[in-house]
């Protein structure tokens, strides 16, 4: 029986790998997710036959409760709420790993584990608990329950390092004397606190990095649990997820030209303060345009690029944007979407929203695929994006976003910026794009303003 389950676990691992491989193309992605879920089902079913399992009532209760909550969450969540959803799921995954390790520890009356097991129990509890509370704080920030601002307090990093050292020291003592159960409880408590303190300083727009990083942690926690229960399938699956999270984290950091350290420690805070002060002062002249004129401008264009940002998600404007794209295309105008890697609150956030609005995915372009094309573009329409189109990133060495790769929308013939007001973006700095000669501001809530624009175009 043992042999059968090992073989099934191997098959499940292979299905996970193929599942992720098929996620490499939108055509096969859904099938890939299906393969991966079949792997999971196989793993669960064969585990139910494990000779160590003697009672099933708790298992049935747990599976039913978990399935109900999980499917309710998955079916109810709106596409704009996806970052929160992923944050929450991460938290549950990390929490599960930590609690499994605790359960392993407490199932014997006098713990006397092999050194490799006790080490991985400590690591699993540490990483799992940090993921658990960290993810819930990230969820709170994305949902607006916890402040989305960069939170700073004195000795922040010193405290975090100190807490981390405390956990490690407690871990070492526990390994030496495993009967000191208080030590393990201390590790749990400090790790939970550490999760809160690590995510709290991170600002709202840096959440793509935080969520990716927590995703990675939840994978590594699962791997550690694999070490605890000596199961290679868990080690493999967890490592795949750990790698995935790290890669996404690095892509996000590169998209902002910042180091991981800078993001995690809550960077950009000084810029935020300085920029806000400057923004409050003089008002530079900008030009604005109304929907009627804008309709005529679009009508005379032959190629249009739409640049969505987090503002599109907030205003739920993706459907209105789809209508705009459709009507322009019906007039023979070429419409494309340019998506900055850190647009929105998680990697790929804009793509999912546009997919929801039934925009064909081959019209969505990544930064490097479209940036050289802006000089040949008649009209660029920026909807709810700000810092990622600020030309200051290219030339102003004093700017906090200097060096960040941006969409060069200012190279196009005309830039239309839809915003509610002239307020500054996340980085807290003024955007010089708004004052350029070829930029026109189109004020209003994205959804209403774009619907109005679509009506004007229809009437032409």
């Amino acid at each position, binding site marked *: 029986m043992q042999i059968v389950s090992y073989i099934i676990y191997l098959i499940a691992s292979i299905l996970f790998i193929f599942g*992720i*491989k098929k*996620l490499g193309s*939108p055509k096969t992605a*859904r099938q890939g*997710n299906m393969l991966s879920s079949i792997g*999971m089902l196989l*793993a*669960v079913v064969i*585990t*139910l036959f*494990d000779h160590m*399992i*003697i009672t*099933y009532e*708790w298992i049935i*209760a*747990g*599976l039913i409760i*978990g399935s109900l*909550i*999980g499917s309710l*969450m*998955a079916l109810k969540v709106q596409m704009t709420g*996806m970052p929160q*959803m*992923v944050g929450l799921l991460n938290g*549950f*995954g990390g*929490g599960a*790993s930590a*609690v499994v390790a*605790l*359960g*392993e520890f407490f199932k*014997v009356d006098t713990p006397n584990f092999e*050194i*490799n097991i006790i080490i991985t129990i400590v690591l699993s509890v540490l990483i799992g608990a940090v993921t658990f509370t960290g993810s819930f704080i990230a969820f709170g920030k994305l949902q607006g329950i916890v402040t989305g601002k960069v939170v700073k307090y004195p000795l922040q990093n010193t405290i975090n390092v100190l807490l981390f050292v405390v956990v490690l020291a407690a871990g070492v003592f526990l390994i030496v004397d495993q009967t000191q159960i208080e030590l393990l409880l201390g590790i749990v408590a400090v790790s939970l606190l550490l999760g809160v303190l690590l995510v709290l300083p991170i600002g709202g727009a840096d959440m793509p990095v935080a*969520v*990716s990083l927590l*995703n990675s942690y939840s994978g590594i926690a699962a791997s550690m649990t694999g*070490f605890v*229960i000596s*199961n290679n*399938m868990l080690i493999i*699956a*967890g*490592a795949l*997820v750990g790698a*995935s*999270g790290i890669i*996404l984290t690095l892509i996000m950091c590169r998209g902002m030209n910042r180091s991981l350290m800078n993001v995690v420690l809550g960077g950009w805070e000084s810029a935020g303060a300085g920029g806000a002060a400057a923004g409050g002062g003089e008002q530079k002249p900008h030009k604005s345009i109304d929907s009627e004129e804008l309709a005529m401008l679009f009508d005379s264009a032959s190629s249009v690029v739409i640049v969505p940002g987090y503002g599109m998600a907030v205003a739920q404007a993706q459907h209105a944007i789809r209508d705009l794209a459709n009507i322009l295309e019906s007039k023979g105008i070429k419409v494309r979407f340019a998506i900055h890697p850190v647009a929105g609150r*998680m990697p*790929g956030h804009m*793509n999912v929203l546009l*997919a929801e609005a*039934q925009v064909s*995915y*081959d019209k969505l372009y*990544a930064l490097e695929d479209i940036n050289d094309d802006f000089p040949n573009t008649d009209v660029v329409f920026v909807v709810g994006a700000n810092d990622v189109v600020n030309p200051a990133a290219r030339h102003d060495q004093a700017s906090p976003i200097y060096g960040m790769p941006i969409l060069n929308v200012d190279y196009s013939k005309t830039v239309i910026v839809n915003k509610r007001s002239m307020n500054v973006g996340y980085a807290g700095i003024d955007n010089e794009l708004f004052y350029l000669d070829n930029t026109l501001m189109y004020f209003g809530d994205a959804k209403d303003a774009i619907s109005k624009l679509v009506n004007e175009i229809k009437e032409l």
Partner: protein
Amino acid sequence: MEILDLIMQIYVFVLAIFVGFELITKVPPTLHTPLMSGSNAISGITIVGALIVAGEGQNMLSTILGLVALIFATINVVGGYLVTDRMLKMFKKK
């Protein structure tokens, strides 16, 4: 002997990380959100550990911990796969 076991497990861990890096660098940005939620569901594999702890019937404390872990992991697995499927269903080319 257990140290040798540990080293073999570290082999598996390191090689799987390399496989992960190879696979994931090929996923296009357009699919990064489903990649996150889909890989997130995979990290719910810890459900296997939860099932064993919840079903071993060793003592009350570990059984309760097992139940909690099982609920968490099941939410992660079921929620993760379902929401990923919901998203991927929408990615269409006209």
